[in-house]
């Protein structure tokens, strides 16, 4: 049986180790000159796809990223990890700021249909917006089953057996292919791209497309009103007794 064709979504986000700062005009966070990298959960998704290819469960992996020109660096990293080819859906930086999971999921679903993908694997959420929506929306648009928060993926008789991390513990479900999977932290540990692969990646195909090529309209559906720092933590007060606590609460008008 020939392997799956896997589509992996990679988002370029501000690096985890960077201290995020709010722009003085409160319209967003500072992204100019700030170090970006691939969303850690997407790295896990790419790693899973590459492992499936190494196990001969997958035959081809395509990485997709939506955003400005610099997304190509992210795609190069994915190519260096073992992805076969990459598609960069380019947008203006201004448009990218207002881009939402709904837009991305429309693009991903169109690409999935066009490329005849069997599996779409994305990270469970992005570390900049924490939306946790793209995977689920993509599955809905494609009318495919979804296995989210996957911490283990195994093949069983043409279907996939996926262990999910849920609030109550671990749940194992069976999903029919084609399906959408979203990766959770404990799925795997992504590899470092080694030098020979980094050099090979330079020769792998990377095509640039526009959202309109897929007939997707990315006009913003939301308007960011303001972005502010969380309030500075105030020092607390120690009280000696319950009566004092009640008095203080009454004084503050909370009781």
């Amino acid at each position, binding site marked *: 049986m020939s392997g799956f064709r896997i589509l992996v979504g990679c988002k370029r986000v501000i690096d*985890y*180790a960077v201290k995020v700062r709010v722009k003085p005009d409160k319209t967003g966070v500072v992204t100019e000159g700030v*170090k970006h990298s691939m969303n850690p959960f997407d790295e896990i998704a790419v790693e899973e796809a590459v492992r499936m290819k190494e196990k001969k469960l997958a035959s081809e992996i395509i990485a997709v990223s939506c955003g400005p020109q610099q997304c190509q660096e992210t795609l190069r990293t994915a190519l260096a990890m073992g992805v076969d080819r990459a598609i960069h859906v380019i947008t203006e930086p201004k448009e990218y700021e207002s881009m939402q999971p709904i837009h991305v999921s429309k693009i991903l679903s169109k690409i999935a249909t066009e490329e005849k993908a069997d599996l779409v694997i994305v990270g469970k959420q992005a570390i900049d917006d924490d939306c946790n929506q793209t995977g689920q929306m993509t599955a809905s648009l494609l009318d495919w089953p979804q296995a989210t928060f996957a911490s283990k993926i195994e093949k069983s008789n043409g279907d996939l057996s996926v262990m999910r991390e849920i609030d109550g513990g671990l749940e194992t479900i069976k999903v029919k292919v084609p399906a959408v999977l979203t990766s959770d932290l404990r799925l795997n540990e992504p*590899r*470092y*791209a*080694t*030098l*020979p692969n980094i*050099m090979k990646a330079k020769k792998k195909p990377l095509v640039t497309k526009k959202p309109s090529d897929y007939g997707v309209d990315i006009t913003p559906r939301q308007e960011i009103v303001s972005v502010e720092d969380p309030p500075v933590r105030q020092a607390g007060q120690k009280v000696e007794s319950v009566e004092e606590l009640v008095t203080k609460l009454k004084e503050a008008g909370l009781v």
Partner: protein
Amino acid sequence: MVAGVKPWPGFVYDFYALLLILHVPKIHSRIFEIFICTTSNLYFGMSPMYSWGVFVLLSLVHVIMTSSVTSRMDDQSENLAAWPFRHLKIPSGHVSRNVKKKNTGIRTFQKKSTTGSQLCQTCSGTVLRRCIQTSSTRHVELTSVRYPDVKRGNYGSVRDSDLATFERLLPGRVLTDSLDGYNTDWLKTCRGASQVVLRPKSTEEVSAILKYCNEKKLAVVPQGGNTGLVGGSVSVFDEIVISTQLMNSIISLDEISGTLVCQAGCVLASLEDYLSNHKLTIPVDLGAKGSCHIGGNVATNAGGVRLLRYGSLHGNVLGLEAVLANGEVVDCLSTLRKDNTGYDLKQLFIGSEGTLGIITAVSLNCPQKPEAVSVAFLGCESFQSVLDIFKESRQKLGEVLSAFEFMDSQTMTVAKENLKLRSPIEDYPFYVLIETSGSNGSHDEEKLSQFLEHVMGTGIVQDGTVATEPTKIQNIWSMRERIAEGLMHDGYCYKYDVSLPLQSFYGLVEAMRERMGTMVTRVIGYGHVGDGNLHLNLTSPEYSTEVMDKIEPFLYDWVANHKGSISAEHGLGFKKKNFIYHSKSKSAVRLMKDIKHTFDPNMILNPYKVLPDF
């Protein structure tokens, strides 16, 4: 009943009872003993005065025992109860479960539940029955015990009047309790017996303290972050610890010239955070940055991983303020880049390890924070390849090269086994970590990829990885920076830091491996090969004099024969002072001793360190 006469074992029995009460920790055993003794005396018709006299005596001893054992058994000289055990060297942290402690009792039992009730590894419960180690740190032997040849100097001892004066000078900042952290070094190899820790906030307070200590001939040991690796930051006997913990304010920053003026107790990582907001960076960077104080770094002339790029502290410190032993403040706190007026006194303080004066403020020249940092982690087959890579990187990366470190495969084993870190590449005999920092990301990337293509093409590098993202860079650096921490898991670490010419660099590691064989757990070599600085470490489960005698002085002789330095950046401190002649001539050391006499005639500043005894 034979009146007035006890059978001959009688008196002996009373004496035996006394000894028993001194040694037995269980309260009910003692009370029982007293009861038996008194009743037997009365039964055998001993005079009431004798019987009740014995009763009173034994009860008194019992009460003293009970109250002493509940107090900390830290200071054996003042502890009556510990006197019978003095030869057994009980450190603090041993608690007898049978004794009810008042305030600390609850804490003890709480701690017990977390650390588990294992028998004390030192005395195996023989000293105090059911003795439990409450602290998670291993029992560390007192330096004065492990090194019996070191004799206490002719200094005063801290008295209550001294404590009162200190309390007046530093209200609320005189510590006399729970001093384990101040008394034990980071490597857990040296332990002093300080009774007092002083925490001044300003230069004036340091001056007042030192003036007083100089008059009373009280020895002091200045302490910063206590991360030194040669036992230089802890006391040997009962010196007073002067900690710079509270002297942590930044005085000024000139953004244009990049000059930072701050107090000596600022933690290096906090300074780095502060400076990065102004697009500047500290010129020195080491694994201990989360805890070490800049004052300590300057006093020990710390090297670190950025020395290759920014040079040593001798070049980067523009000025400092220090307090001499007699309390006089020497103000050399210039912020000028160039100032050729008279002898450059600050250079004497830099690297003096707290023996010439206590540094209280530092003025540093801070370079621009690089815009683009990349790290490459490479694997290669032999040490010769490491040297070839170094040569190539100097040529091809030139001005953007900011760090060049190497590790051998045994070092990587420590990272994997002890720290559970993951290597980015497969196993190789040697690893090289190269960092580039520059002002233009694309230029540096171009240089780096050309360099890497070249070294991969010529085969001197077998495999490697490159990272430009901060998280990945941190992960790769942590493999090199956390080795010292990883070695602690093995037990005791014999740590050596030597400078050697690059041709004989790795030869020392191989020689030590051959010499020590299975006597040690492992022999590893890693370090700043770019500066010619090797960190050689041997580990064994516990400290062993046999192992130590086999390592020293063979290792130092080997280094001296190859014209190296026995201490490249760690300093001499307490552990290496007697080997100074391996790297410095007699006339040089004589001159050093003269300088020490001039700066500190009473020898109160950090005694027993740096210079051999005189």
